[in-house]
């Protein structure tokens, strides 16, 4: 076996001696069930959804052990691509899936084994949130969500019954602002390069995401018309970088940030009043009593989504356990946990049972909070009477302009990005 599994054979041999040998030849259900507690599934992914609370709850509800490793998105990509034997479950973003799937390290999942498959939000199936929504640019999840069969290596255009990733978590990102220091309404992405905010703007130094924010800005300024922001030509990349390099040299940016904490500190200290930001970072600034808004903009949001993929070397009992885990994941508890942090669950309706009416109203329906809103860890996030920035689920996810993407010209873009940082 390529992967010594959890010592299932070894441990049960020690424990039950000959009985275990009998079990492998004549699998008796009793023994299988008993061994569930010996199963260990190794999951790795970005910090967003690799939560210890989830592992704890899995042990409680399903009986097996889930080992979590949190890495940054570059390391996640690298590991999924180069070390297939080091994980059982990969919790990755859809654009990472586009990069990693061709390596054959992940296996497609049979949707008929997913109990809540029919309830998964349309974005991840047909690509449409509602039957009449338009599909955004970039690596939209449904474009890399399906393959033709269990061994498929190329992505299918429609639902096939074989999914690459089971969607777990997603959100719509926009610019964060300090309303108290700006003092006027902000409505467009173009404001990021407005000279009014010279030396007070910031953008994130993660090329694959930063380039999309740049594209949103350049398009909003009317400087560039992109064929597809999620798959730029070399010419479009050059033009985008030129605009931002000029702005950088004119001192538009105070700093660039790479980690969550940096973005929080830049905003909280008032060094920066407008910047690309992630939803929980806004929450972190607010929790220090500093006003900060996740500003909805007329051009729409830049969205991202993550899902769970299964290692291709997963089989037998571990594979069954992984399916159990996925079904459990979509059954609501995790969804509720994530939604109370401001993310969205792939099957929102199951999460509803795990949220109070007030929480559901605030986070999903965009209603006024009727009581204090707290995070799963107990921090106060909003007072009664407050409304979520951007409104309801359908308002926010309905106005996604592009998805995080990996382009055909990715390596070229990365080099240009490096030059931009050094310029």
């Amino acid at each position: 076996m390529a992967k010594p599994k959890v010592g299932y054979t070894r441990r049960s041999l020690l424990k039950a001696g000959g009985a275990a040998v009998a079990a492998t030849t004549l699998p008796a259900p009793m023994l299988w069930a008993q061994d569930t507690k010996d199963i260990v599934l190794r999951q790795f992914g970005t910090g967003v959804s690799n939560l210890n609370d989830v592992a704890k709850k899995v042990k409680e509800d399903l009986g097996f052990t889930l080992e979590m490793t949190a890495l940054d998105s570059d390391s996640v990509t690298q590991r999924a691509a180069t070390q297939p034997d080091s994980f059982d479950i990969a919790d990755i973003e859809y654009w990472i899936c586009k990069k990693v799937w061709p390596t054959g390290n992940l296996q497609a999942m049979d949707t008929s084994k997913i109990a809540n498959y029919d309830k998964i939000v349309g974005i991840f199936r047909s690509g449409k949130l509602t039957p009449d929504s338009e599909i955004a640019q970039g690596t939209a999840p449904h474009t890399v969500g399906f393959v033709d069969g269990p061994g498929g290596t190329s992505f299918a255009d429609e639902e096939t019954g074989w999914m690459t990733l089971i969607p777990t978590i997603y959100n719509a990102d926009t610019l964060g602002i300090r309303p108290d220091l700006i003092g006027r309404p902000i409505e467009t992405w173009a404001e990021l390069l407005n000279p009014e905010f010279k030396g007070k703007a910031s953008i994130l130094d993660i090329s694959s995401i930063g380039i999309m924010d740049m594209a949103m800005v350049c398009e909003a300024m009317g400087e560039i018309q992109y064929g597809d922001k999620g798959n730029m030509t070399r010419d479009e990349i050059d033009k985008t970088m030129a605009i931002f390099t000029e702005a950088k040299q004119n001192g538009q940016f105070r700093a660039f940030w790479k980690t969550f904490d940096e973005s929080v500190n830049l905003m909280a200290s008032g060094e920066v009043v407008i910047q690309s930001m992630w939803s929980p970072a806004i929450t972190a600034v607010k929790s220090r009593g500093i006003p900060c808004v996740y500003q909805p903009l007329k051009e729409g949001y830049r969205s991202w989504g993550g899902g769970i993929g299964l290692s291709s070397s997963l089989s037998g009992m571990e594979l069954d356990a992984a399916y159990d885990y996925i079904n459990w994941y979509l059954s609501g508890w995790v969804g509720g946990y994530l939604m109370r942090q401001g993310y969205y669950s792939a099957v929102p309706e199951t999460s509803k049972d795990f949220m109070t009416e007030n929480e559901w109203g605030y986070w999903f329906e965009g209603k006024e909070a009727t009581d204090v809103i707290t995070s799963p860890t107990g921090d106060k996030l909003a007072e009664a009477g407050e409304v979520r920035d951007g409104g309801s689920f359908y308002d926010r996810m309905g106005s996604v302009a592009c998805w995080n993407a990996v382009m055909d010209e990715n390596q070229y873009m990365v080099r240009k990005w490096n030059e931009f940082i050094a310029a």
Partner: protein
Amino acid sequence: MAATPLKNRHVLGWLMALPLSVVLLAFLIAPIVMIAIVSFWGATEFSIYPAFQFDNYEFLFGSPVTYKVFGATLKYALITWALTLAIGFTVAYFLAFHVRSLTMQIALFLVCTIPFWTSNIIRMISWIPFLGRNGIANQTLISWGVIDEPLEWLLYSDFSVILAFVHLYTLFMVVPIFNTMMRIDKSLLEAARDNGANGFQTLVHVILPLTKPGIMIGTIFVVTLVMGDFITVRFMSGSQRANVGRLISNDIALLQYPSAAATAVVLLCTVLIVIAILLRFVNIRKEL
């Protein structure tokens, strides 16, 4: 018969040198050779493959950014060196010649090392709230009426980068200079005095030449530390400036190991050349 003891002595000598050679081979030579080999490899988006190609070097030498970044790195090294030398020499001079009692000298020397009891990341980051737009420095200056508007260039600029470098690395200058100064024979200073030299002449003609090895060792420390740094530049410039270290760390983050290795090889050569030039001026070995 005479050959046997000689041979044994050779064997013994080699054996005694063996542990160090093995350590150096395994932990110094082998990794460098590895880096040099990988620098010729190719990379896709998520993997590297063995090859012998000059693509990485071609791209490196073909990009104007490379020259700019190497220029910036040398600039940081030069300015930091000049400032740490000025401060380090003054501090060492004070400790060695103005403070008379040995106990006091040791006590004051230990005081110099206090900042090193915390991690250098913390020492670096603590500048950020101090220098920020609404930081202590700006607020104090405004309350004194020196300035009306906060000074923007205090943080996330070349100024803040060099300030952090000087703060972090001055001690590496103080220690070797202090060490050589302590070994200067005091009677030489008296002789200079007797021959009519004033304080400044003694400093320039006696102390400075005798302190050169210390200065040189300090210089090597500071120059190599600054040229190899990436984290100080990233934090203190808010990712707005780049040096070679950052170029390498960006490549690594994007899984472009061969390209990072090529940059590392070029950086290594640059640093070795700088040190070779420095060693032409002073024979350190003679003084150790």
